[in-house]
């Protein structure tokens, strides 16, 4: 501890807050655990504010954190419009802020990104590799959700680039349980469009739903599913016999959580993490999972080092969580 810069020479006095927009689901749970682990490694006091998808509340929570006298804030998701002013107030109050997956239009705030474009690109490149550049595709998409919109940009780019990609159906829903609702839609789509051989479902809940429908229709050898994000449950689904879900591109949400806190710590220590901190995604294919006998996220981290740790925002003094 002696060689750490201020204020981390006395980390017990450092208070940071995580202000969340989304919290329910594996991704967010894993992200939180990464934040917690890194905060623990640093020895700082962490407070978690959950706005549960209430954008207005999230902005208020920033003010609350200001009132609580925190030294730094991690903003996790949210809407540009509602967060920009609140974050500006925090910056004005001398608080260091980093933002994950939300653009708060502030030069003093580094952006942590998992790069949705890159995620989509990795999955789609794999699809082209597996199926050639012309195939009949079904696409699962719900507009209005920022990360999905960014993945959608990539999908449209690919369609422009490869005219052989024929999108015959687009569907999607966020009705919970999402996998179940998407499965119902997908089964209708598969009956109406028996020629589909590729499904692009750039969100793991969508992919799971599509997989259920494909299995139920007995088409698992005829269709390949490409998606984004990963969890232990997804790994199991991909590992199933003759699973149609052949590839997904993902960053490790826990790693993103760790990086967020590290970037904030650098700011607090007076260092510059850079305006944009990108955590690179990893492509995970079914073959990899089978060959390396990966059963869950922990094994994935252990066997794919690029997934376990992102070498970003790691100055020499930074204590890393144990692994």
């Amino acid at each position, binding site marked *: 501890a002696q060689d750490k810069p201020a204020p981390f020479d006395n980390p017990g006095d450092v208070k940071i807050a995580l202000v969340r927009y989304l919290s329910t689901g594996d991704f967010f749970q894993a992200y939180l655990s990464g934040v917690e682990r890194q905060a623990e490694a640093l020895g700082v006091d962490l407070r978690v504010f959950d706005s549960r998808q209430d954008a207005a509340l999230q902005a208020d929570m920033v003010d609350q954190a200001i009132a609580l006298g925190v030294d730094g804030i991690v903003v996790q998701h949210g809407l540009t419009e509602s967060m920009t002013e609140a974050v500006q107030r925090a910056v004005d109050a001398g608080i260091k802020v980093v933002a994950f997956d939300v653009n708060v239009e502030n030069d003093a705030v580094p952006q942590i990104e998992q790069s949705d474009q890159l995620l989509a690109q990795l999955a789609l490149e794999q699809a082209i590799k597996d199926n050639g550049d012309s195939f009949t595709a079904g696409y699962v998409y719900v507009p209005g959700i920022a990360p999905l919109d960014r993945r959608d940009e990539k999908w449209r780019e690919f369609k422009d680039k490869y005219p052989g990609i024929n999108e015959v159906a687009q*569907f999607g829903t966020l009705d*919970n*349980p*999402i996998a179940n609702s998407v499965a119902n839609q997908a089964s*209708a789509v598969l*009956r109406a469009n028996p020629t589909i051989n590729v499904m692009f479902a750039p969100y793991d809940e969508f992919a799971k739903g599509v997989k*259920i429908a494909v299995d*139920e229709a007995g088409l698992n050898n005829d269709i390949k599913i490409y998606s984004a994000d990963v969890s232990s449950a997804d790994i199991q689904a991909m590992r199933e016999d003759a699973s149609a879900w052949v590839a997904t591109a993902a960053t490790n949400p826990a790693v993103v959580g760790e990086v967020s806190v590290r970037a904030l710590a650098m700011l607090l220590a007076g260092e510059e993490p850079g305006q944009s901190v990108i955590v690179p995604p990893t492509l995970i294919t079914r073959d990899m999972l089978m060959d390396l006998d990966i059963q*869950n996220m922990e094994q994935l981290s252990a066997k794919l080092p690029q997934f376990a740790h992102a070498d970003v925002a790691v100055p020499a003094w930074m204590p890393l969580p144990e692994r």
Partner: protein
Amino acid sequence: MRNFAIRYGFLLLLLAIIVFFTIMEPAFMSLRSMVFVFQSVSITAILALGVTATLVVGGFDLSIGSVAASSMMAASYAMVIWGAGSVEAVALCLALGLAVGFFNGVLVVYARVPDLLATLGTMFLLLGLQLIPTAGRSIAKGMMLPDGSTAEGSFDPGFLFLGRHRLYDILPVSVLIMLVLALVIWFFLEFTRWGRVMYAIGSNELASRLAGAPVNRYKIAAYMISGFCASIGGILLAARVGRGDVSSGNNLLLDSVAAALIGFAVLGAAKPNAFGTLVGAIFVGVLLQGMTMMNAPYYTQDFVKGAVLVIALVFTFSLTKAARN
């Protein structure tokens, strides 16, 4: 003529929609396709049958969605983390559903909390409760537990069978369960004295009590039927999805309430009834599947669902009541 419209108007509308979709998309009208429609609504329908039971005694159950979600988590937890077999898992879920139903019933009957309020409280309770054992994670084979070890168990094939097997290669087990449950509840409500007494309680609770009906027990039983149905829904959900997904079950709630309420309009019943509930669920299923096949974006589906619902109901109810006057 008007009587005919009241009795069969809704069924004719359903038929018209089916014909329309078949013309637009011939793949719609096949045995397989119909089986898929049934499958897509099986869970909603099962929950809706439970709501119907509470509607019959003049109550309401807002907790079904969260009971189903909790039951899905409980089944997954039992199998994946405790390594239980499918029988134990199913038994656990049913016990959970019955217990929640009993709890709701006691709140309504003995603590006299209004039904909407009591079941809303239970709903919030369960929404939180289901997430506590896993600290908000969903449950899957090989998952890492909070204590750092790895879960040993996995979904029992017998359990997955419930969600995935097809009898004679065509009829999914979940559809069979839905049909059997609908038949049982329909028969129970229409042809047993218990069912009659439940309708009597819903119509005039005091009169039924004065006629010697053990009203409290019946009401608690109705909530237990509801919880039981919801837990079956949760089991089928877990068996279909094959993991314990974190979910609020809110959409399940709304869809099943819609199905149960549409049921009022079927055959001019103008009261909760099991046959109507089943038809209501299938109606929504046909609409959604047909529109998905026609590539309609999801938001137009909500819109059309709402529009058809409103039109059908205006038609039925304004006719039914007009004929009364």
